């Protein structure tokens, strides 16, 4: 009768997340930058449309952009951050992504 091969690995080496993997796991932020020409109500409605935010949250983020020059409007996986950033560009807002420190 054939013996069953062990199924469990014998080391825990791969349980340790490498520095490179840790870097990848840090969230990416979508940042919207202020400009002197875009009407405030346009920024609010674009945030509502793209992120599905309620009016109060969209307005608060718009005010942060207006007063501080920029605001982090979303954080998470890189692919989604890039997608949101593209949508913001298509909507005519200046946006960038960066990985959190």
């Amino acid at each position, binding site marked *: 009768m054939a013996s069953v091969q062990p199924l469990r690995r014998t080391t825990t080496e791969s349980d340790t997340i490498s520095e490179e993997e840790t870097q990848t796991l840090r969230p990416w932020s979508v940042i919207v930058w202020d*400009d*002197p*020409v*875009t*009407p405030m*109500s*346009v920024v*609010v*409605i*674009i945030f*509502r*449309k793209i992120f599905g935010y309620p*009016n109060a949250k969209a307005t608060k983020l718009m005010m942060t952009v207006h007063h501080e020059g920029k605001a982090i409007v979303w954080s998470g996986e890189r692919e989604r951050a*890039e*997608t949101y*950033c*593209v*949508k913001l*560009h*298509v*909507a*005519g*807002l*200046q*946006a*960038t*992504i*960066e990985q959190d420190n």
Partner: protein
Amino acid sequence: MSKNRIFIRRRDGRIEVRLNEHGRNLVRQFAEDVVAAENDIDHAWHRQLQAPIDPSRDIDDPVSMLARQKSTASNAELVVLSVDEEFINDGEGWAWLMTLQVALRSLALNEGLLSEDALAKADEGTLVEVHSLQQLLFELAECLS
């Protein structure tokens, strides 16, 4: 009050566009500029439309860049197609809003209007264009919200 508005939401959900010929020509001109800028690397607005989304890299992921280029040009083309309509639907309304916002931002960047001071010193012709776009955007945003 609705007498003075440019965009009016009708009961059936459509958006009535009360633009005169000058207003429609203005929208058409900006939409055509956005389409041209996406396709022509020598267009004055082309660089404004290609800003990288990740400043740590020189260029964007080609897929992201293509998605942005296609969506921006598609919105602007939809505006060109619907600019003479008396009524537009929600999708067209959003295409109008995004295209006019892209045009406003491209115009501002191209003219160096990056601060309130620069805006105050802008020439009369540029200011008229900026204010016209702002008025259209403001009223469209109100109608779509």
